[in-house]
């Protein structure tokens, strides 16, 4: 899923005039945690300072998280509870994707760290 989201994030840079940044962009879950409960700040701006009317969506959600009308930059403060990596997407009024950024959820590895070595094997 993470790889797919990453691919989407790369693939949807249709409008290079819009830059979207998430702070933070990463959450690491320990073995005792099931989800990331974090405040995420999404900031966007137009590199050319042109005004845009657009909305911020969470991946797979039809309802926007925030919308702006004819402005060149915007900030939204989001309280998200996430269990897996999720993309946040800026779309214009025609639902065209303008920019996207992925919030990564990583589960800390609980596996034995070193590869198995059997000293009693044939070789």
């Amino acid at each position, binding site marked *: 899923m993470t790889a797919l989201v990453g691919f989407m994030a790369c693939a949807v840079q249709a409008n290079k005039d819009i830059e979207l940044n998430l702070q933070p962009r990463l959450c690491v879950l320990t073995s005792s945690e099931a989800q990331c409960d974090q405040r995420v700040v999404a900031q966007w701006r137009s590199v050319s300072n042109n005004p845009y009317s657009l909305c911020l969506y969470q991946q797979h959600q039809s309802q926007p998280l925030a919308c702006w009308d004819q402005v060149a930059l915007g900030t939204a403060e989001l309280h998200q509870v996430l269990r897996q990596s999720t993309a946040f997407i800026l779309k214009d009024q025609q639902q065209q994707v303008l920019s996207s950024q992925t919030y990564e959820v990583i589960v800390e590895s609980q596996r*034995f760290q070193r590869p198995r070595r059997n000293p009693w094997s044939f070789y």
Partner: protein
Amino acid sequence: MITRRFFAKIVPLLAIWLSALASAETTQDKAWQISVGVGLGVRTNPVMDNKNIPLVILPHVSYQGDRFFIDNLDWGIKLVESEHFQLNALLTPSYDQIFFHRWDANNFILSSSTWASFTHSDQQTNSPAQNKPVTIDKSRLHPRRMAAFGGFEWRQSLAPDWDLNGQCLTELTGYYGGSECRLAITKTLNINRHELAFTFGESWQSSSTLTYFYGVNGSEGTNLTRYAPSSGHAELMRVDWAYPLTQDWDLRLFASYKWLPEAIAQSPLVTDDKIVTVFVGGVYHF
């Protein structure tokens, strides 16, 4: 006999089941790893006048899944796993049979040193006939087959770069009802691109295991050569070195020295009290 038939059916089924489970697991990057070592090496053979075992091509197939692993002929299920601890159910082959697969048809004549060692054994009460060579007719020896062992493997990270590996296994194929326990500690060392591992280990083999491989029963020998060993402990020292040359090629060297227990060394079938293994070569990763 019933037990042997039972396990002869169970082991292949278990292998197929594990294979199916492995293929059903979520595909991970690098879950399957296949490599071939090509080089020059040898393992000494302590059994009779058998030739040493050449090590030239060393294939390695491994699969590391979420719950299952395959490491050449070792198949396992991860029962408990954390960052520093792993408990596995393990299916693994016996190793001693490799020394018996290169028999020629000749009789084996016990040398005076072998005979002297053998007659000092507690199990031997007869004395050899003077001035008469003592021989073992190899055609009378029963085949030493590869057996399957099943049991538990325990891995523990003691400190950074120190790993403990323990295995307690019982024979599943029903050939001799043997059991083995193995314990090894490994220190890994990474110096620049050099990967080094130093291992010290001890293994215990039951009397029935050693009797199957190194014993001589009434139908195999005479009263002079009959031998029923007790259980025994063997010690192992091993060094591994690897150096990545390219993305696909590594240089590899390993050497091991195994001290055989008296129960093996005193067998009339055995002419040495150690096994030395050395290999140097390149490993290609597919």
